[in-house]
């Protein structure tokens, strides 16, 4: 049966990963109809949502872990997967358990998580630092200290793409790294405006100010273009989620040698449990409904999980898979995951509405050198206060 799957995985590494899903699904005798929408989730989600509300749903669709599809579920547009979950004991295999909780509404399971993505990585180019004649830093502070040398060598110290989600992502990474997981949870989780306006977070804004200065010369739009600057040694580093790893791999680079990674910016080694889930809209055609179940279990099967996540650079949602093939960076991530040093993703804590406002704030902050960290912090606190 043909099943159309929409997603926004269109960069090189992502597309290779998706191909693994498609291959596995096609192997079950069904057919994966690819519905890639380029851009980012921001471009793709509206299209997916309007298709679902417009009564022409696809077979399955990607969303981020979290609250993005909440209302669609409540409106009864998404398929209940509880039976399948029970049959395949998802509760036991999915790790961390919070991921499945995210998919559960009123005790019913509506989605399957397929990977864990974390934001808390600083990717560093060995070549750039070699060119500048400084050692590869071990943490954020060293990185900041090395920046002048990089600049002198004609490099951009920190590569940041212009899209809003990248800057606000970098900020929350800094928050976890500099402020620590507790502050992060208070601000994003509890929406504690007092903390958001407090001295701890002020330090984070100071760091963000540093990042802003270091990235002033990186004039690229897309995150993978920024990553490409790191790969080619034009930039010193990039704060970006683990999906960047896919780009490094695709470029044939070796972790630890050509590039280095610092989870939690080398300061606080925790990772978020963000990532992607697949939802299955309610379909009329029973054939397709059956295919949806096949797809769901295929995506979650250990073999596909390994194949997919290796390509994607993300971590599998199953604790029981063998990841010997994983590279250095991935192993670091797995370690942290095994230790349970996880925090939820912002998507899981805040609504898209609030996140958009945060995004807007940081987009503005990074693009406006005249905006002081204090101003930005005040506005940030306001947004947190109103968030739900």
């Amino acid at each position, binding site marked *: 049966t043909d099943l159309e799957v929409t997603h926004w995985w269109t960069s090189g590494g992502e597309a290779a990963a998706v191909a693994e899903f498609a291959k596995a699904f096609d192997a079950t005798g069904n057919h994966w109809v690819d519905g890639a929408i380029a851009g980012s989730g921001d471009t793709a989600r509206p299209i997916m949502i*309007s298709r679902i509300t417009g009564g022409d749903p696809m077979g399955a669709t990607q969303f981020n872990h979290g609250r993005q599809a909440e*209302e669609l579920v409540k409106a009864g547009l998404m398929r209940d997967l509880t039976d399948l979950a029970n049959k395949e004991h998802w509760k036991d295999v999915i790790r961390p358990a919070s991921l499945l909780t995210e998919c559960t509404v009123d005790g019913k399971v509506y989605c399957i998580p397929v990977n864990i993505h974390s934001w808390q990585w600083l990717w560093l180019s060995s070549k750039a630092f070699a060119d500048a004649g400084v050692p590869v830093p071990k943490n954020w502070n060293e990185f900041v200290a090395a920046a002048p040398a990089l600049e002198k060598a004609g490099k951009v110290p920190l590569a940041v793409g*212009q899209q809003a989600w990248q800057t606000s992502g970098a900020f929350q990474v800094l928050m976890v790294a500099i402020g620590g997981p507790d502050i992060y949870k208070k601000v994003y989780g509890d929406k504690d405006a007092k903390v958001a306006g407090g001295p701890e977070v002020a330090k984070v804004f100071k760091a963000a100010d540093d990042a802003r200065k270091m990235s002033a010369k990186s004039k690229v739009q897309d995150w993978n273009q920024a990553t490409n600057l790191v790969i080619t040694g034009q930039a010193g580093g990039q704060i970006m989620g683990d999906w960047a790893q896919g780009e490094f791999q695709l470029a044939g680079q070796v972790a630890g040698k050509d590039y280095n990674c610092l989870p939690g910016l080398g300061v606080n080694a925790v990772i978020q449990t963000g990532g992607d889930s697949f939802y299955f809209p309610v379909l009329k055609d029973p054939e397709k409904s059956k295919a949806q179940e096949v797809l769901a279990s295929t995506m979650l099967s250990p073999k596909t999980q390994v194949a997919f996540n290796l390509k994607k650079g993300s971590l599998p949602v199953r604790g029981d898979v063998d990841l010997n093939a994983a590279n250095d960076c991935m192993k670091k991530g797995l370690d942290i995951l095994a230790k349970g040093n996880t925090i939820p993703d912002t998507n899981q804590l805040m*609504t898209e*509405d609030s996140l958009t406002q945060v995004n807007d704030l940081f987009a*503005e902050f990074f693009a406006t050198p005249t905006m002081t960290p204090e101003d930005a912090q005040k506005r940030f606190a306001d947004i947190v206060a109103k968030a739900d």
Partner: protein
Amino acid sequence: MTEQTARRPSRLFRNLNAKIASIPMILNALVIFLGGTIWTIVYSFTDSRLLPRLNFVGFDQYTRLWVTPRWLVAVENLAIYGACMLVFSLIIGFLLAALLDQKIRFEDTFRTIFLYPFALSFIVTGLVWQWMLNPNFGVQHVVRELGWTNFAFDPLYDSSIVIYGILIAALWQGTGLVMCLMLAGLRGIDEDIWKAARVDGIPTWKTYLFIIIPMMRPVLITTLVIIAASIVKVYDLVVAQTSGGPGISSEVPAKYVYEYMFHAQNLGQGFAASTMMLLSVIIVIVPWAYLEFGRRK
């Protein structure tokens, strides 16, 4: 003469075919335009998020709207863009039309050259100009290679002037049509007026300024309205060229609406913003429409 009972037929059935033929228009006007608008306005008073729901919250969405920096930037940008676009496209369009009206050779060729960008989509225009204005490849790079190494022209990466970068592309695409309309207007002016002005010894530029332009009022108004409508709608161009960046410095209202409705999953906010846009459109359009179509009756 016999008195026959030829009674006035029912009003409804007179002109029946015309009414049937107008059904698409009536449906469109009532259901889509009027209905959709009212629907949007009603829901702008709710706290709808991903899906519309009738949970009224009064003017909350509006108060929030008018304190959101992004909206304020968007409105400011639209004001700058709108004013410049109106002024420059009218001026440039008129100048081009006036040049073409001088009985020149190759008029068709020039006209086609000025008009062809109009055939392209905003997406294409945006991409091309993003590329032209890219500091690493485009104009800045080229000029620097020629020796002026300090030359700086990167409007798309400078938040204070990014909106002018967008304006350049918009003018490139839009002036052709304005020129076309103006040319039609110029050609519609009585040849004798020109002769009279020449006999009176009035220089060409004065003739244009004091006689011809005032006479072109109807065309100017039509053109103005067409430009104004496209200004309010500007969206694709910004998306293709800058995605609103750097930061939020090239945001426009239409983009705000779109993103709040779909990305931020806050329909209420999006509807509130679009109602504000509608309001501005209505302020501009209704007096004109009244003058144009109401007066005719």
